[in-house]
């Protein structure tokens, strides 16, 4: 159990918490990876980067003013959307391969560091639980990520074209 307001303005680093956090977990998170098993109101408020994984219910106003980073929320009941402030973010299933492996890795580390039975249950029944995760991503951030990906692909292409063996 963690008191209110944790991980305020964190830049990098990782935190794994077996238990439930209070209000404003990961407020202004700008780069940390955090896993927790439930949260209070205003989780991920003003978040600008990093990853937040909530393996349980959240309070009201999730992701208010969140402009960067990604959150994954285990939504077993299916009512997460009501608790989320969708002003800046978009909700969707975890489908992208990179996303799935990232989430799996984070929960895996959570298990490693905390021996959480919950993490164990999720990982052993992964196929069953994966569809119950919701990915929360700010629209603006998604756009920037896509642009960065595109640039990266272009760069690789150019590099590939520049590769010595392809030169004549």
């Amino acid at each position, binding site marked *: 159990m963690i008191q209110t307001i944790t991980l305020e303005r964190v*830049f990098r680093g990782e935190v794994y918490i077996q238990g439930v956090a209070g209000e404003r977990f990961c407020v202004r998170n700008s780069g940390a990876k955090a896993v927790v098993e439930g949260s209070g109101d205003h989780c991920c408020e003003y978040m600008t980067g990093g990853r937040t994984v909530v393996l349980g219910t959240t309070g009201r106003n999730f992701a208010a003013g969140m402009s960067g980073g990604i959150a994954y929320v285990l939504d077993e009941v299916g009512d997460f959307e009501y608790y989320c402030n969708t002003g800046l973010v978009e909700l969707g299933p975890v489908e992208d391969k990179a996303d799935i492996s990232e989430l799996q890795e984070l929960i895996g580390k959570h298990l490693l560091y905390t021996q959480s039975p919950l993490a164990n249950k999720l990982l052993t029944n992964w196929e069953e639980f994966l569809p119950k995760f919701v990915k929360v991503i700010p629209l603006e*951030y998604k756009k920037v990520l896509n642009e960065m990906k595109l640039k990266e692909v272009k760069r690789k292409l150019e590099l590939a074209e520049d590769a010595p063996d392809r030169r004549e």
Partner: protein
Amino acid sequence: MESNSFPKAQGLYDPKNEHDACGIGFVAHIKGHKSHDIIERGLTVLVNMDHRGATSSDNKTGDGAGILMQLPHDFYLSLKIAVPEAGKYGTGLVFLPEDKKEADHCAEILNKFVAAEGLQLISWRDVPVDSSVIGEIAKRSEPLIRQIFVKGDYEQDILERKLFLARKQAERSIRESNLTQKDAFCLPSFSSKTLIYKGMFTPDQLRDYFKDLTNPAMTSAIALVHSRFSTNTFPTWSLAQPFRMIAHNGEINTIKGNRQWMHARESLLESDLFGSEIEKIFPIIEPGKSDSASFDNTLEFLHLAGRSMPHSICMMIPESFNEKNPIPEDLKAFYEYHSTIMEPWDGPASMVFSDGRYIGGTLDRSGLRPSRYVITKNDLIVMGSEVGVQVFKADEIKEKGRLRPGKLLLVDTERGIIIPDQEVKAELSQRNPYGDWLKENRLELEKISVRQRVSSNIGDLFGPYSKVFGYSKEEMMIVIKEMAETAQEPTSSMGNDTPLAVLSDKPKRFFSYFRQLFAQVTNPPIDPIREGLVMSLTHYIGSVSSNILEETPNHCSLIKFDSPIITNTDLGKIKDLKHESFTHAIIPMLFPVNGGAAGFKKAFDAMLVEAEKAVDENKNFIILSDRNVDENMAPIPSLLSVAAVHHHLIKSKKRMQIGIIVESAEPREIMHFALLFGYGASVVNPYLAFAAIDYLVNEEEIKLPYAEARKNYIKSIDKGLLKVISKMGISTLQSYHGAELFEAVGVSDELIDNYFKGTPSRIGGVSYEEIFKEAMIFHDDAYKNPTKKVSFSTVGEYHYRNQGEFHAWNPQSVGLLQWATKSDDYQTYKKFSKLVDDQNAQPAFIRGILKWKHNPIPIEEVEPAENIMKRFVTGAMSYGSISKEAHEAIAVAMNIIGGRSNTGEGGEDAGRFGTDRNSKIKQIASGRFGVTNNYLINAQELQIKIAQGAKPGEGGQLPGFKINKIIAKLRHSTPGITLISPPPHHDIYSIEDLAQLIFDLKNVNPDAKVSVKLVAESGVGTIAAGVAKGFSDIIIVSGCEGGTGASPASSIKHAGLPAEFGIAETQQTLVMNNLRGRVKLQVDGQLKTGRDVVIMGMLGAEEFGFATGALISLGCIMMRKCHLNTCPAGIATQNKELRKRFLGRSQFVINYFTFISQEIREYMAEIGVRNFDDLVGRVDLLEQNHEVTNWKMKNVDLSKFLNLPKEAKLYPIRNTHPNTKNLDDVIDKTLIKEANKAIKSGEKVWLSHSIHNAMRTVGAMLSGQISKRYGEEGLPKDTINCTFTGTAGQSFGAFLVKGVSFKLEGDSNDYLGKGLSR
């Protein structure tokens, strides 16, 4: 004995501003088994929260601590006191005057009322105390403490009411007596159920002082405790908590309104339980006590009058119940129904309460104060502000949890159960068919049918009306147009450099004489956009809260508004209502133009008489209207009318019966509306603003259909109102209504005392005559030379205009300063400073009305300019808001002259650390952008920015398009992603939180000074006192004139006070509290010349901040385009091309500061002081220059600025010693030793420690040491591995760096991993 209360208001100090914050908690046996162990545990909980309280300047006097328990019947039997069976007698400690005669007199009065209520005195007992344990300050006001026992053979609830009646009457009688030490008298409790011990203690002194508490015969199943951190050091034994039913951690922001509404309600109260005796209780709220005390008074009254405790609490602190809140419909109906009976007591609150049987806790809707509980297997429950206040083994614990925002936890010790929130509230919502009652009786404005539409077009009247009400070109084209087009209020930049309304010789609207208050430190502002779920503009009008002790369907016969701004047609609907619960009277706010000032006053008085008549005739609303202005009739200012009617009706106890609607041409800006609601209006119809939009649409200035433009305009006002109330930490317009959260600047005492009672006002100012004259200037302008053509005057409020309002930074002053600094010519600088000083005395600024006394000495004897320049700092302007070139030029200049430059919010390139471009001051603002451990360790001063002069109480937003790669890198964010700075620091919700952040920062960098930046407003002095007690080294008081890169125009103009007010009040308050010697004071706000610095120094400042002046010397020409990224001087822009135009040099800044210090030396020689230190706080060397005046200033009096408190003879009036908090015993010292090898050579270490909640900020100092050696890089991953077992204190793992891994087995308190850097 010293007076047992706050000092009387004097100078700029006012005891009304006192705040406190605290640690609270309770221990209870759920099954109600009484034992001494429970009391012991309660006392331990207190001691374990010691760090949340504070001590006074003598370092021994606590701010207050106390305990509430069940009446210890067995203890009294063991003392052989002749008490009857439990429940048939009452008792309580009595604080009495130290003077024997007066004490006896007070006791007699109490005896008298006890007998009058049909109770029999059993005996008085001397309470054994050990006075040697308390501090000097507490001792000086220590009361005589005795205990009274009385009996009465009644049912216990009846007995409770009789004890209450006796207490209330005794309190009132003594309060109204002539006793010299009457302030000492207090009954902490007087009950047959509970008993309270409290006083001016630190937590551990409580146990030692009252010997009763350690007596094993004293038993209880309940122990509720409280320790206090207050912003003052004045002895106030009676304000220690718990109060009779509650202990409160938090602050009620709407208290002024709540108190007035309660007062107004008294005339309508009827209770079966009290019958005709109810008047004996009045006033329900004891005057002159704290916000928590007033809350307790009201709760106690509601409870004794028959409402259950949870019911009363849900009424006073309702949770948010709009659609974003997942609570049942019938509970929403319960809240909505009760919102028509009482407005919320709004503000951060964690509250624990008990009546001896029930004990529980609740949190306000935002949940800003933590509250945690543990339930053990052997039926103990412990709740506290922190986890770990009682230590249990893991296998003893049954359940742990925390209170959630808006939720309750209730224990019934008689039935031996815990009642969860849902059950409590389900029961409450079933009490009555609230939902049906609402449906049947409450009207919703939009559902009322329209009989006739009322057009916004007022035809030919628009020309003269726009002149009578002073609509300027700027207001039309910037304010109204932008709001109607974009639904946003306009943004502007740089500071406010125009004169105060009362110092300007131009006529002003009456609104301009007021300033918004805002929350800083002691409670957080709210983000109304991101946290909209707790906000509401819903409001009701009609006969609100008739008898709050009853519940009938009729209570909600009201009209509900979703927005308080109504259209002409909406107003028409209300006028057309024919229902008997919805009748109205229209009262004109007009006066005849030919009657002179006397005629004005006559019309004004008649308006008040009419309002009272409307109540007597059972009308439900008053419509105050200025619709009928013409050549013969001019308008009385709408704000004056509303406030006067509101206060007149409160005084005559007729206010609750009627709602006030304003139909006025005058309001158009957000500030205007906020003022009208804050002084009692319920809804406003701004018909001329609508007509103006209609005009702009017809002129095709606004290219939108009228209906849409009007909708946008109303929306922008709504948004703006939410911003204004959230600035103050208030969630609902309903509780803002009548809360008077403004300060008057330049209004006469006559008006304030009569119609703005409770509003701070410190310099006097305009009265009827001047207001009449102002109204006539506008009226004459409209009707003396009538023209057909519509035209608007150029006022120049926002931008400098040739014929317009005076701006301190004008083409002449800007030009002279740039010429002087570029050519390094002191004579030109003297021309500049003469121009500025003369203009200040036109007058424009308070400093221009002050002058000093002469006693010349040779200038050679005055300390050198180099010394003086060390006192200069530059303002916090981030790299991001200004260009790299400008930012570095300033840093270099300040490093050369020995002053200090400031990073601003947004980090700093690590490449600058250790070079001459390093900023000595590193700022920590609410967004914490770029605040890494390495950043902190490279500072000489760490500045916590609580508020900014231009927009105090607001957050900010840096749009994604401005964030390029470099800025994103410094801020540790992603390029292109918008960055939002929240309005509050999310780790500072109270004064003890600020103390915690200061502690964090001092741990990371023990060599740096910590400073806290506040903005001047009424009450800033008491906040500063709290900050000083929280171990800040420097306190910065910023004037509201401060500059900005981008802020809402209305915030720049209307929030906060000029720097002179802030610095003088802070100085006086700190001296009175003997805290001045511990801190340095710094001031900023439109400082330009040596004269400005000297005056500010005499008012109390030691250091001086310059921002705009420095920018101007670098080439700024005050285009006010900073928010647009188009700065033509290449300063406030990131645009590559524009930055090439930057021609500034560090040398120009150096020249400017050299000139100022040279000038200061000349003045010091004139005054006759050799060292600047000898000037600080010397208000005795200042006087008001009565030659500086204008037609409005007849009643302006600056004597409050010049008040030297009598304590100045005893205590320092400037900084004399450091404000050190001992860091020797932090566990990091051990960690650093143990990890020595790892730090030095990177060798891996594994450490293990036990931990408890008093061990705070673990890891920060260790990390600071690593940053010092390795910079941003840190150590390789997992070099230092620590495992902790137990409950971690606040800020566990704060500012950890790479290479340090912490593992915690157990719980953690707030701020885990705050500011983790890698």
